[in-house]
Each structure stands twice: as C-alpha cells, then as structure tokens.
C-alpha cells in the first residue's frame, strides 16, 4: 500500500458536496501535483487531508484517507492534532497569514520542534537555525531574531517551509506555495521543495494551477475539475498525451517558448460554483468537444495506460 492512499474521498459542506470521490496515492520520495483552477477543490482536498474541514464547516462524507496504513477519516481531533505538524505539515499560499506578525520568526519555528519533538529551548533554537541554513537563508542566526515584517516574501515563505519541516514530518502538503511570489523566487522555492523530497524522502502533495510548475516538479499529476478527478497520470504522459480536454486546455494556458502571437487561447468561461454544477460531465459547458452524451451522462473514471481519465471522448487524444 502507498504511504498516502486517498480513496473515493467525498467532502460535504452543509447540503452541498464540493468534493466527489477523489482518489490518489503517493509514496515517500514522490511529488504529486494536484492541479485545477480556483474552485476545483484543490484546497478543500488539502483541508481534508489535514483534518481541518471542521474549521470551514465541512466534513468527510465518504471514502478513506490512509497514512502509512492507518485510517485518518475517523480520527478524533486530539489524535489528529498529534499528527499535524509532526507526521504531516501544511505550507499555505500566503506566508503573511501563516506567520504571527508579533512573534520573532525563529521562535515560531522553535515552537514546532518543542511541541512535537519535546526539544528544550536551546536545542529547538539550534535546530531551527540549522533548518533555516539548509533553506539557504543567509545569516540564519540573525534572521531567527527577526519579525515577519522585516523580511521579503520569499524569505517569509522559506521560514514557513522551515516551520513545516521542524516537526520532522513525512508528508507535506503545499497549497500554492509560490503563487504570491516573483518568478525568480518561485523557481527557488520549488527547487528547495524538490531537493527536500529527494534528500529526506518526504512525500509532497503540491497544489497549483500552473502547469509549468507541475512539469518542472511533479512525478504524478491529478487534475481536478469542479470537485471531481478529470484525469490522473504520470507527469510525462499528462503532457505528452493529455487525455482529457480540460488537461489539454490547462497546458495550453502557458505560453511556450517561441509560441506564435495570437495563438494563446485560455479556457472559455469559468469554473462553476458549488451547487451550480452542470449535469453529466461538469466540464461540458466549457468543452469544445462536448456532445449530447456529455450533457446527460457522468463519464466514469477509466484506466488508460498508467493513468485514469473521465471523458466520453478520451480515446483519441489529438497529439498522441
């Protein structure tokens, strides 16, 4: 069994069901990309994995999440709390909201290893400085004493990564960790995450809407649309033979080197809000290939090669 095994996970908020039977698996030393536009259910999946759904009034309504063989969906909050920060950690999109503006950043990193690893103040401090140094923060001992407002966005995100690593977790969920950053800093942060996965044997779920980031970093990819899996595959096949029209459109949103002017398309329309999903295939109102069957029948998720795809017309990818 895989280290993280999510099977048919469904999430409900009130009477709505924003996440519908999501499945994926991830081993240690691997990076899984969770991709889709805003409103696809990526962050909700992250909240579900971290057991944080009650914070937003949500709950798991079906399926299972197994971490290293043990079921998480029926875990009581105290047991989940012992897991969070220790075996699994979350890196969120905006480093500004993950850090307490009133507390020195070093102390915030120290707290994690004091709480989860039972380290003394001095041991926690030297561990934090070690981590900050590993994340290529110059003069880590000085930075340890700084407040968040004294640091650049890229430095703050490195501190947030250090906080995530401080409890020595095995699984990291990074929810759009570079969206708020400059491209140069994005490249650095992604490289740091990739290096951590390879050197420490971490399992990383990388949530992003940017197929460029996926191509650069991920081993496997799950494409979500409107709360369902549209397609899942190894990264090479996702890009070489995208089987779902949504995957193809997402890839075409990033201009390639030397792409002819006027050829960038984007995806018409927007992701529907929860409760306003179309019948049949939820992507059909935005899909160029949609036929009558797409409006009527939900396409089942079917195995194709090393992946799965949920599309009535996935048999003949155009550029395979």
């Amino acid at each position, binding site marked *: 069994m895989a280290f993280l095994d999510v099977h048919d996970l469904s999430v409900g908020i009130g009477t709505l069901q924003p996440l519908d039977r999501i499945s994926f698996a991830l081993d240690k030393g691997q990076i899984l990309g969770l991709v889709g*536009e*805003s409103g696809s259910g990526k962050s909700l999946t992250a909240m579900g994995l971290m057991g944080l759904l009650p914070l937003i009034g949500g709950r798991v309504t079906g399926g299972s999440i197994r971490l290293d063989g043990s079921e998480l969906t029926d875990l009581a909050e105290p047991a989940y709390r012992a897991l969070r920060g220790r075996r699994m950690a979350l890196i969120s999109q905006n480093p500004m909201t993950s850090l307490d503006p009133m507390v020195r950043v070093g102390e915030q990193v120290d707290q994690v290893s004091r709480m989860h690893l039972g380290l003394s103040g001095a041991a926690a401090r030297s561990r934090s400085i070690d981590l900050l140094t590993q994340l*290529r923060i*110059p003069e880590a001992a000085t930075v340890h004493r700084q407040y968040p407002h004294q640091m*650049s*966005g*890229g*430095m703050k995100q490195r501190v947030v990564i250090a906080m995530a690593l401080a409890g020595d977790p095995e699984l990291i969920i990074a929810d759009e960790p570079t969206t708020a950053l*400059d*491209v*140069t*800093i*994005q*490249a*650095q942060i*992604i*490289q*740091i995450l990739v290096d951590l996965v390879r050197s420490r044997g971490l399992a990383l779920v990388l949530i992003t*809407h*940017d*197929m*460029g*980031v*996926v*191509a*650069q970093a991920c081993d496997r990819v799950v494409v979500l649309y409107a709360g369902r899996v549209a397609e899942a595959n190894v*990264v*090479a096949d996702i*890009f070489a033979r995208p089987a779902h029209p949504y995957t193809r*459109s*997402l*890839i*075409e*949103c*990033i*201009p*390639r*080197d*030397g*792409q002819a*002017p*006027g050829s*960038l*398309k*984007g*995806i*018409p329309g*927007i992701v529907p809000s929860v409760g306003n999903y179309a019948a049949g295939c939820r992507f059909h109102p935005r899909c160029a290939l949609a036929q009558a069957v797409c409006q009527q029948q939900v396409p089942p998720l079917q195995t194709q090669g090393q992946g799965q795809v949920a599309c009535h017309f996935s048999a003949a990818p155009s550029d395979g």
Partner: protein
Amino acid sequence: MADTHVDPSASLVALRSLTRRFTSRASLFGRKRTLTAVSDVTLDIARGTVTGVVGESGCGKSTLARLVLRLLEVSSGSVLFEGKDLASLSGAAMRTLRRRMQMVFQDPYSSIDPRYSVRAALLEPLQVQGLRPPPAEERARVEQLMAMVGLNPSLVDSYPHQLSGGQKQRVGIARALALHPDLVVLDEPTASLDVSIQAQTIALLEQLRQDLGLTYLFISHDLSLVRYFCDRIVVMYLGRVVEILPTAHTPPRHPYTRALMDSSFEPDPQRRRVVTLMQGELPDAFELPAGCAYAARCPGATALCRQERPELSSDGAHALACHHPLM
C-alpha cells in the same frame, strides 16, 4: 543611452533620462534615506507596438508605469507624449490628454469601487471627462463597451462582488478603453488571475490591440508571458534598465535576463529547468552597492563589476548594461 537616435516626435511616448527618487526615514528620528526607484531611463515607444517591462518586485517597473501617465511626478528627466513634455502641461491640459493614455491595474478586486455597478463603473471615466452620453444613448454605449471586452450584457447591473476575477478585470479593461485611448499601460493585469483566465485576458488584449490600433506598455514579472505578448522587452533591475531585447526572441545577453528566463517553467517535463539556488535576494534599495547592482547575485561577477557600474550601451536596437555579457 538606448534609442537616442530616434526623433522623439516620431514615437507616441518618449522617456528621456527619467528618474524618480523617494525619501523616507528609517525611524521617527532616523536620518533621511533616498531610494531611486527609477534611474535614468530613456526609451521610445512607437505607435502600435507592445513594449514589455519585466523585472522582480521592487525593480521600479510600476513606478515607471505611473511616471509615464504622470500619476507620479518625475524627479528629473521627462516624459514626452507625441513630443509634448507632460510636466509642462497645465492641470486642464493634462486632464484632456489623459483621455489618450489609460491604465489597467493589477488588482481588479481593488481597482473598481465596490459600490459601483458595471454600468456605473463604465460610465465613470466618461463622466469625469465631461463626455457622459445623453441618457438615451447611455445603454448602447455601455453595452458596446461590454461587448468589446466579451462581457455578457446581462451583467450590466451586477456589482463587483458578483463578478469573478476575470470578469472584474474585463470591466477594468473596458473602463480603460471607454475614452478611446492611444496608449494603455497594463500593470501586471493578469498577476492575480488563474492561468486559464490569464490566457483568456491576454488573448482579449491581443484582439483589442489589433482592432483598435492600441499601443501597450505591459508591466510584468513573468518573462515567458512578456516574450509571448510583446514586440520588445525592457528588463529592469533595481531602478535601471539592464537590457533591451529588440524582439521577443532575441537571446538574452545579460545574466539577469538569463536568470529570469530560467525561472519561468515551461509546460513540458522534458524541458525542466536547472535552477541554481541563489544565495541572496535583492540588495537594500536604499544602499545600493557601488558597482553593478546585480553583482551580488551574479555567477559571473568580477572585481570590475563590484567597483564600476556598467553603462547601458546599444548595439543597434539591442541595449545592454553588463561588463561580461553572455555570448
């Protein structure tokens, strides 16, 4: 200096040694410190072209955009619009000229008044300029603007909170186009949007440029987007132009431009970038080093780079400020 051989009156906009300084105090009783956000920028923007300005946060690109529209006053140097120095214009003359130069802002969430419906937001620029159409024609004018940017006319009475980010940005673009401008300054118009909506918005801007013969100054930190969208690329680092690529496909010769290019990931796992972890970030803009501002992060920096700032020199249209340019 780049582009000094061009007669300024031939370009729509000409920037001459444009400089803008800001002063602040480190603390209440601290000594005054000066930051030069834009330093000695000379540039000509020909009618109908798309000029991209690229660089990281803090490189001065947004300050440059505001100087071009005289939303900020220059410290020295000048902005010429069809040969007229903006600084010499009276308030009334400047207001009239503003019809011809408009801006699309980065954040559509904060650039539209939340209490304005789409109709009110689109009529506001006309009203401000005293060009509000008679009531009988209002509806047609608003609908025409909405159609131009691909907004469904049924949204005319919607408020910003009822619109998606992409729709709001279309309202922002329609507002900028309401007065039939010649120049549109686009300040990171897609930075806060999903990639799918970013691509839609860029496609719309391309179409509008063709249809209306617009001239764009496009500000972005995303070099792959700039290379796709722009005819010419100006690369800024800490307030200075370090390279001007005459076409989007000119290979970069400045190590900083190269680093920017290596930072934008292509949607192709066969072409993964080799990212070298840089030790530093931008130096303190208040205390710039004596030599090349990029030297601290540059893998090819030498003693010369740390002592003497390289001047921007031009080989035809390709301008470059580097002691050791890439081949």
